[in-house]
């Protein structure tokens, strides 16, 4: 199971508390985790990445194991600690606005 931490607004929208756990089919890449997340919580479609272009929203960031994965290709494999469930995959609303 892959653990995912959502920003507060998206937790409210998805009606979840704390982390969510995902079964990810195939290789655990950025895109497969996002696909699994949106399949489990359809309300999140369009909130993390644009529904038409599939581009990450500019003020959303992806962190894992203290590394920034926001600008990595979507086929990038997540680190082993995340795949093993020892570390969460973080979806973060960028800090902006003062």
């Amino acid at each position, binding site marked *: 199971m892959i653990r995912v931490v959502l*920003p507060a*607004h998206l937790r409210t929208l998805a009606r979840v508390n704390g982390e969510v756990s995902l079964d990810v089919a195939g290789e655990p890449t950025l895109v497969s985790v996002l696909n699994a997340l949106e399949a489990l919580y359809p*309300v999140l479609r*369009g909130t*993390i990445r*644009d529904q038409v272009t599939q581009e990450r929203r500019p003020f959303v960031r992806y962190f894992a194991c203290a590394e920034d994965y926001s600008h990595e290709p979507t086929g990038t494999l997540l680190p082993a600690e995340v795949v093993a469930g020892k570390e969460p995959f973080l979806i973060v609303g960028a800090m902006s606005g003062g």
Partner: protein
Amino acid sequence: MSGVRVLVGTRKGAFVLTADGKRERWDITGPHFGGWEMYHLKGSPVDPSRIYASQSTGWFGQLIQRSNDGGKTWEPVGNKFEYATVPGTHQWYDGTPHPWKFARVWHLEPSLTDPDTVYAGVEDAALFRSTDGAQTWEELPGLREHGSGPHWQPGAGGLCLHTIILDAQHPNRIVIAISAAGAFRSDDAGKTWKPINYGLRSEHIPDPNAEVGHCVHHIAMHPSRPDSLFMQKHWDVMRSDNAGDSWKEVSGNLPTDFGFAIDVHAHEPETVYVVPIKSDSEHFVPDGKLRVYRSRTGGNEWEPLSKGLPQSDCYVNVLRDAMSVDSLDKCGVYFGTSGGQVYASADAGESWNSIVRDLPGVLSVEVQTLK
């Protein structure tokens, strides 16, 4: 027992204000969707329990919410707004071509006949329609593909389609307005469109009388006289008596004819309300006084309405979708301010009371008259 339900969209959530027909004691619920920008909420005239709401943030994009119980509970519905054809470019602020890109829904207009049909005016400017209760959306591309599209440029708030007027007497007629392209009308249910800006004059564009390029802020219509349209333009209050084919200025004795909101009395088609704003560079009411201006002559002759409104040290704005009327007798008039106040008049503007004073900045106010 009759009553009213006021749907308030703010920069940080939505609020639902309800009262009986006396409109004296109010019940306030919210924030719904706390922390999100609620650009607009509007109920179906066919089924008042059906309400649509536009929810967005710069972080997480656009959502649409739907209520089937008058705003008590909500469910997210479809939020995929995909242009029907390759969008191409419009003008950017500096005059260069800029790719068309969906940003948000500014206005939701439920059908006059079917609670499952609703129109959405979006940024970058386009008109979408859903016929399944907002689960899926389809663009009516004839508007965006009107030949003038590449010349449209955004207003300060973006290239937004913010006004949608449906007409029960002419079911195929739709009037829309875009900042800063102007007003357009379709007479074939949205297939084809024509600009309806003849008579508008805007000094901020190279040709002040151009066919498109006017920063129309809002348009209002009385359902009994659909050919009469009242417009608050960037500067100038205008009226048309031929469904927008031509316009004449009716600013008359207003202290300033800049503003955003405009509406028409529910029972008097020649009674119009505006809230003059000082200027395009100072978006607050003039002289520190919050005054609604009313014309009972269809424009030109305006009277200030200030009883119960702050008359000193007040520097708020009233945005384009933040004024509405109910259809009780006497007509109720409502508006919300950038300072978070929602004011109501139960006597057609003669006197005002604040329903609530400390909400986040108000983006939209819509009223449902409940029988």
